[in-house]
């Protein structure tokens, strides 16, 4: 006989699944994550569309992209900030999106944890790497053999 007052006896029979929904965490993390997806999404539209436009549409499009093109852009703090924001927002947005997807499809707690650990490490690495590249980037590296941007003074 069931001791739990509310559960019908069916819930302790062998064939019934166990309900392990943990008690409310009390934090609003999921809410902020949800909100962040929407806010970052709106900003990303501007950033990404701008990025795509400049890189693929203006001038010779993708064929214009080379080291010089990139260096030329990052010499300008405007594009540095632009790309930095894009990097962070897109990565956080994407990471959180994939986290949701893992929550959806990985049923077992262990699998969830593993997948999410891999995800977070990968994302952290990429974000750090990307940030470093943008800030420590030297548009006129010494010893370069190919087309540097025109503002580089030949050493």
């Amino acid at each position, binding site marked *: *006989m*069931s001791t739990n*007052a*509310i559960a*019908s*006896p*069916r819930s302790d*029979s062998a064939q019934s699944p166990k309900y392990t929904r943990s008690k409310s965490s009390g934090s609003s993390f999921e809410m902020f994550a949800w909100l962040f997806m929407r806010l970052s999404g709106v900003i990303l539209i501007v950033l990404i569309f701008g990025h795509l436009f400049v890189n693929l549409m203006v001038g010779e499009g993708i064929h214009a992209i080379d080291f010089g093109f990139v260096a030329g852009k990052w010499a300008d703090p405007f594009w540095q900030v632009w790309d930095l924001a894009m990097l962070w927002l897109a990565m956080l947005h994407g990471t959180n999106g994939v986290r949701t997807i893992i929550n959806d499809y990985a049923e077992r707690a262990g699998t969830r944890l593993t997948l999410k650990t891999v995800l977070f490490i990968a994302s952290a690495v990429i974000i750090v790497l990307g940030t470093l590249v943008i800030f420590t980037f030297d548009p006129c590296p010494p010893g370069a053999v190919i087309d540097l941007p025109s503002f580089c003074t030949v050493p």
Partner: protein
Amino acid sequence: MQVHKYDVVIVGAGGAGMRAAIESGQRAHTAVLTKLYPTRSHTGAAQGGMCAALANVEEDNWEWHTFDTVKGGDYLVDQDAAEVMAKEAIEAVIDLEKMGLPFNRTPEGRIDQRRFGGHTRDHGKAPVRRACYAADRTGHMILQTLYQNCVKHNVEFYNEYYVLDLLTVEEEATREDGTVYLQKKTAGVVSYDLATGELHIFQAKSVILATGGAGKVFKTTSNAHTLTGDGMGIAFRKGIPLEDMEFFQFHPTGLAGLGILLSEAARGEGAILRNSEGERFMERYAPTIKDLAPRDIVARSMANEVREGRGCGPNKDYVLLDLTHLEPAHIDAKLPDITEFARTYLGVEPYTEPVPVFPTAHYAMGGVPTNITTEVLQDNDTVIPGLYAAGEVACVSVHGSNRLGTNSLLDINVFGKRAGIAAAKYALTADFVELPENPEADTVALLDHVRKSDGGEKVALIRKDLQDTMDANMQVFRTADSLNKVLADIAVFEERYSRITVQDKGKRFNLDLLEAVELGFLLELAKVMTVAALHRQESRGGHYREDFPERDDENFMKHSMAYLDSGVTVENSAESIAGIRLGTKPVVFTRYQPMVRKY
């Protein structure tokens, strides 16, 4: 075999069962056994409203309500019970509101009320707005609200547990006048867990029967497939009488051919009935309140129109419910569900087309006899300690020979509450009655018989034949011939029933098996109804004998009581038919003397 012990066991989780559970659950260790998940109970299908003389929109009082109930029931109502119900109605509605029921509101924010058949101001002067409602889903809201409150109070449900037997013991006792009789006592119930096929015994100090109606004895019915009169059947088999079983209500407006109900609220909101000539024929039958006459009268008038050739449709077998003069917005606000039924199931657009309707078997006025504290009676006045009944399964009797619309939702709330309180109170003072030896023996035998019987007869076919003959011969119009025809048919069905084969031999969710068991109850009840109808050689309320078209107060102003009695053999008289002994019980009068019933 598992044995559970509870103070109170409630059988059924419809409106009556859950209303009782809310009371009992807070006072005593209570379990609710139900063959359906609580929210599947047929209370949820009720549409129109629940009456109480709140006087929120116009002058009204409980005394008028009592009068209407008594008159509506053609004076066969026990007036003390009707007074209790009408008086406690107000509190019952307020209780529900406080539990959260979302009633429709008046502009002042009070509970809104509307008209309903047979409810009048000042003893029949004019229709009164008395029905509290939530659109046309009042029953749905009641069922949900009660379930919600059961969740709130941690009521213990055993879902999909079919109760198949009531455990009683009999002891010799002496009456005040010195006569010795057998006193029944309640020990518990035997139930069948649908999921596993296991039997569970519930020992209890109090048992409340709240298993609802038995509409499935008829073919055309507004009742659910699961309303097979189990509670009545179980009680009857245990030697408990059934009261007033000949009175079955046929609701005028079922969707033609299907039986799905279109609430009387439609007529309350202004819809009218028309025959094939477009005539508003109720003007002829009930000049004062016309389409809002009580159900028995309207149903009979409709059937009469069809009989006299003024029916509509290819077979001229239905009449029309006309809402086309109502504003679509008004219809949407007040009658959204039933108009959707018309669209979904008949493809008729009620805004512009009248809807085909015909009477549908709706409500059992009779049932397990109880007194006003819902204690079950084993004869005219001996109470069975610890056994209670409320709702459609019971006969208090507040409905007499014809229930007024909205009085059943009221009944389940008023008497459900009373049952819960009384059962808990009794359980807290009483001791457990020792279980009889081999408590499950009868149930095991019943199930074994059904499982092993191998004559090839199909349950569904017997049921269909039963329903067909009931529809043809026991419906709105009855004669001695038609009733005898039913009895002859039932004798054949019973023989066939002894030769059924159940295909599903498994243990898990064996609904095939249970349908066979339910058919057993249906056959039993159909027989009781017919025998009682044959016996009542008069016309009153829902019972209309063409061979005795007048009400006969001299001989029949009394309740009928049917007992299972194997000693009674077939004699072709109205008094006794194989296995059923009929008795009578006096009607309780307090303030209203019988008058001619005119509207």
